[in-house]
C-alpha cells in the first residue's frame, strides 16, 4: 500500500550525520583535553594570571611546533606514527569483532624479535630477499602470537584480556632472554648487534634522492629528515584495513560477531574461525609494527627491557578508540598521539613545561571519549534549545505541504520523502533519546561505531 521513499538525499544526510558524528566526537574530545591541559599549566606555573596565560600559550605553541611545526620535526613525529598506526590497526580490527586486544605490545615485541633474528642469521643474504623475509617473518610470528589468543578465546572461552596480558609478559621476558642471551652482542651488555646494512630500510629523503631525485629536484641535507620508508607500509596497511573492514565479507562477518553473536549464529557465520582469523590479522599488524621500527630507525638493534617500557602498544588502544576503529580515524589519531609524544619533548625543552603534560592530555582525550561527553552535552544543550525554539510552526508548515500533496493523490507518503531541513536536523538529541529507550542495545556497541 505504501511507496517507501529511500531517496538518495536522505542517504546522503545519514552519511553526513555519521561523518559529522565520527569526526565531531574525537575532535571535541581533543578540544576538551587541551582546555583541561591549559588549566593544569595555568595552575602549576608561577607568576601573575597574565604570566600564566602566556606560559600556557607558549607551551602549546612549543608543543605544536615540536610536533608539526617544520618539515624536520614533522618527519621526526612520523617515525613514531609509523608503528603507532600499525599497532592501532591491530587493536582496531579486534575491536570490530568485539575483542579487546591488549596484546599489541607483546605482538610487537615478537615481531621485532623475529625480524632481528632473521636479519642476524641470514646476514649474508642480499637485501631484496632479506628485507621481505624479515617483514613477512615478523608478520607471521605476530599472527601466531595473536592467533593463540584467538584459539584460546574461540575454543576454550578464555577471555582475551587475560590471555593477551599474559602473552605480553611472556613475549617481554622471552625477547629479553634472547637479547641478553643467545643474541647478545659480544662485549656489549643487554643488546644485540646492529642489523646488517642491507637489512635496514632507507629514510624517505635518501630513498627519494636515489630514485626520483635523479631527475627531479633533490632534497638538501636528506639526513635531517628521519622518517623511513616504513611509513609507506603503514599507509598501505591503512588501505588494506579499510578494504578488509568495509569491503569484504570477512569484515562484515566480524562486525556481526562483535555486535550480535546470536545473529552470527543465526547467519551461520563460522564464529570460532573468524575470531581466530581476526586475532591473527591483529597480531600480524602489530608484528609488522615491531619489525618496521627495528629496520627503519637508529640504532637498528634490539635492546633489553625496551619492549615492556615501550608505550606504543598501549597508546594504540587510545588511538583505536579515538579513531572509532575507522582507517581514517586511526590515521589522525596516530598523528595526534605521535605528535603529542614528539612535541612534548620539545615543549619541555623550549617552554619549560614538564613533558608529562602530554600524558595528561592523552588521558583526558581518552577519558572524554570513554565518558561520551559530547552526546551528553548535546543532549542537555538541545533540551534547553527546544524549550525556546518550538519546532511546531516548522512542523505545521511541512504538514500543510504534505496534506496538499496527498490530496492531489500523487503520493500518500510525502512525509517520508519530505526532506525539510527542520525535520531532519530538528532533533539533535535523537541519539541520546534512543540510548535511553534501548539501553541494552545501545550501550554495548557504542564504542565500536561504524564508518
Amino acid at each position, binding site marked *: 500500500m505504501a511507496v517507501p521513499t*529511500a531517496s538518495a538525499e536522505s542517504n546522503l544526510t*545519514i552519511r553526513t550525520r555519521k561523518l559529522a558524528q565520527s569526526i565531531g566526537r574525537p575532535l571535541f574530545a581533543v578540544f576538551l583535553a587541551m582546555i583541561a591541559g591549559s588549566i593544569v599549566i595555568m595552575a602549576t606555573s608561577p607568576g601573575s594570571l597574565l604570566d600564566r596565560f602566556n606560559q600556557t600559550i607558549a607551551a602549546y605553541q612549543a608543543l605544536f611546533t615540536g610536533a608539526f611545526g617544520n618539515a624536520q620535526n614533522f618527519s621526526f613525529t612520523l617515525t613514531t606514527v609509523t608503528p603507532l598506526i600499525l599497532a592501532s590497526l591491530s587493536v582496531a580490527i579486534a575491536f570490530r569483532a568485539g575483542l579487546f586486544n591488549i596484546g599489541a605490545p607483546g605482538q610487537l615485541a615478537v615481531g621485532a624479535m623475529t625480524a632481528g633474528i632473521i636479519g642476524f642469521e641470514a646476514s649474508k643474504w642480499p637485501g631484496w630477499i632479506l628485507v621481505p623475509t624479515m617483514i613477512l617473518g615478523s608478520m607471521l610470528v605476530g599472527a601466531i602470537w595473536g592467533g593463540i589468543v584467538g584459539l584460546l578465546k574461540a575454543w576454550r572461552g578464555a577471555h582475551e584480556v587475560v590471555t593477551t596480558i599474559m602473552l605480553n609478559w611472556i613475549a617481554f621476558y622471552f625477547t629479553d632472554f634472547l637479547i641478553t642471551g643467545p643474541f647478545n652482542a659480544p662485549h656489549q651488555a643487554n643488546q644485540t648487534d646492529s642489523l646488517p646494512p642491507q637489512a635496514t630500510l632507507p629514510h624517505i629523503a635518501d630513498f627519494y634522492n636515489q630514485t626520483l631525485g635523479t631527475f627531479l629536484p633533490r632534497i638538501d641535507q636528506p639526513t635531517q629528515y628521519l622518517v623511513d620508508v616504513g611509513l609507506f607500509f603503514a599507509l598501505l596497511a591503512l588501505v588494506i584495513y579499510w578494504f578488509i573492514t568495509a569491503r569484504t565479507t570477512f569484515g562484515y562477518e566480524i562486525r556481526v560477531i562483535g555486535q550480535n553473536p546470536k*545473529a552470527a549464529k543465526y547467519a*551461520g557465520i563460522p564464529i570460532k574461525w573468524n575470531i581466530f582469523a581476526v586475532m591473527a590479522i591483529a597480531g600480524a599488524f602489530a608484528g609488522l609494527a615491531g619489525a618496521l621500527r627495528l629496520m627503519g630507525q637508529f640504532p637498528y638493534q634490539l635492546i633489553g627491557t625496551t619492549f615492556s617500557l615501550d608505550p606504543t602498544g598501549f597508546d594504540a588502544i587510545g588511538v583505536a578508540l579515538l579513531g572509532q576503529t575507522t582507517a581514517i580515524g586511526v590515521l589522525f589519531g596516530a598523528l595526534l598521539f605521535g605528535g603529542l609524544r614528539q612535541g612534548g619533548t620539545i615543549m619541555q625543552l623550549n617552554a619549560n613545561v614538564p613533558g608529562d603534560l602530554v600524558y595528561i592530555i592523552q588521558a583526558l582525550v581518552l577519558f572524554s571519549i570513554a565518558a561520551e561527553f559530547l552526546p551528553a552535552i548535546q543532549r542537555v544543550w538541545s533540551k534547553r534549545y527546544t524549550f525556546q525554539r518550538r519546532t*511546531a510552526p516548522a*512542523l505545521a508548515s511541512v504538514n500543510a505541504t504534505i496534506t496538499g500533496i496527498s490530496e492531489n493523490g500523487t503520493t500518500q507518503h510525502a512525509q517520508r520523502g519530505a526532506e525539510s531541513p527542520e525535520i531532519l536536523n530538528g532533533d539533535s538529541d535523537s541519539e541520546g533519546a534512543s540510548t535511553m529507550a534501548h539501553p541494552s542495545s545501545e550501550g554495548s556497541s557504542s564504542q565500536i561505531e561504524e564508518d
Partner: protein
Amino acid sequence: MQESTIVAPTEERETPFAVEMRDICKAWPGVIANDHVNLTVRKGEIHALVGENGAGKTTLMNILYGLIRPDSGEIFINGQQAHITGPRDAIRLKIGMVHQHFMLIPPLTVAENIVLGHEPGSAASIYDVKKARASILALSKQYGLPIKPDDRIEKLSVGLQQRVEILKILYRAADILIMDEPTGVLTPQETFELFAVLRGLVEKGKTIIFITHKLREVLELSDTITVLRRGKNAGGLVTKQTNQAEIARMMVGREVLLRVNKTPAHPGPVVLHIEDIYARDDRDLEVLHGVSFDVRAGEILGIAGVEGNGQSELVEALTGMRKITSGKITITQVKDGQSGRVQDITVMNAREERLAGLAHIPEDRRGSGLVIADSIEENMILGRQRWPQFSLVGIVLLLRNIEAWARKLIKEFDVRTSSAEAPARSLSGGNQQKIIIAREFAANPLALIASQPTRGVDIGAIEFIHRRIIEQRDAGKAVLLISAELEEIRSLSDRIAVMYEGKIVDIVSPEATEEQLGILMTGGHL
C-alpha cells in the same frame, strides 16, 4: 473521545482526565513520529492505544513517561499541567510503564528488582531485605499477583517477569500504568491471567493505557480507544460501540481482510523430511524425544503447542543453530512436480542449510534475526553475504548489488524507512520484522521455516505476511509454520502437527476445533 480534546480547558471540568496530552509533536530524522497528537484518558478506565507499526504509539508513551522529550505539546496529569523531563518526574506523578522489552536485571531476585532504586533501609542506607520482602508480599496479596520474592528473574517465565514489572510499578505507587504491547510475548493462558490482573487493578482505581496489535484484546479489555495513523490521531472510539472491522479500517485507512483467503493446497512431493530427531536444550536436558514429520512442496504444516514444549529447540535443530543428538533431516529439490536431488542437512550449519535452500524467520527478531546497529542494507544480506550476487567469490562485497537488492526489497515489502542506510534500530518493531520477512522470502528457498512470523506486527502487516506465506506455498515451497497464535495456525495451515513435551502427538486437519487442539496440546487424546 475525539471531541473531548477540543473542548474547554480542564480547569472547568468536574473530574479532570487522568491523562491529557495535547498537540504532541515529535520528529525523528526523516520521520514525524507524533504530529499534533492528542490523547485523553479518564481516571479508572482501560484505554487502548492502537495503530499500525510505526504509527508512533511507543514514541507517545515514551514521551508521557519522560524517556523522550517532545518537540512541542503539553501534558496534563489529573488536570494539572505537568513538566515531565525524565522518568523521575513521571514516577513522582505516579506514572509507571512496562516496556515492550523488559527492563529487569536477570541475576537479581524478584524482590531486588522490584525495590531497585527505592530500597527500604535505615539512614545508613543498608538494604533491608526483610522489609522489602514484606512489602512485596503485602503488595502481591493486595493486588492478587502471586509471586515468590526470592526467585531469580532469569529462572522465571516471560509471564512472571511481566508480573514483576507490574509489581515494580505498583511498588512505586503508580496510579497510571502504561503497558506497551504486554501480550506480544505471552501465551494465551498468560494473556488470560494478565487481563484478570488488569481488571482487578482498575477496580482498585488505577488507570491503564494499553498498547496492542490484537483487536480481539482491544474489544475484550478496553473501555475507550485512541487510534493513531502515521503519527496523527485517526480517531477515538468507545469500545462498546465499535467492532474489529471499524477499528481496523481506522488504523489502516482502508478495509482490512481479517480472514485469510486461501485456495486449497496442492501438495507435491516431500521437501523437508525430519526423521526421529532428539536434541537437548541449553540446560542439557533432552527436549526433543524423537520428532518425525514431512513437509511437502506446496503445503503449510503448522505446529501447534503450548510454548515451551520444544518448538523453539525444534526450529533451532532444523536451521542449524542447535546440534541434534540423533536423527536425520533431509531437503529435496522439486522440479516440475518431481523429486530431484536429496541433500542431507542433518549436520550442516545455518549457512550451509541456507545454501541447500532453507529460509528461516527466527522467533526472536531483535535477538538473532537482526543486527540492530547495522543498516537495513547490511541486514538484508545477513546469512547470505557470501552468495555470488552479493560478493565476488564470497570475499569482496558487491556494494552496488547489495544496495539495489535492499532497495528492491524495501519497496516490495513496504518497509517504512527514510533510507536504506538507516540503522535497523531506528525502525518500529513491525518494520524490523519486515526486513527479516523480505530477506528470507526473497531468497527463493525450497523450504521456509517461519517461527512466530507475525509477533508484534500490526493487522495490516499481518494480512500482508499471511498473504506472502500463502504465496510462497502456492509457488511450491514447503512451509513450516510455528506460532503461539492458534488462530494463525488454524487459518493458515493445511495440516496441523500438535507438539507436546518434545513429541509430535498427532497431525490433524485445520478443521479441528480449538477445543480439540487444546486437548491435544495439553497431552490429552481425541
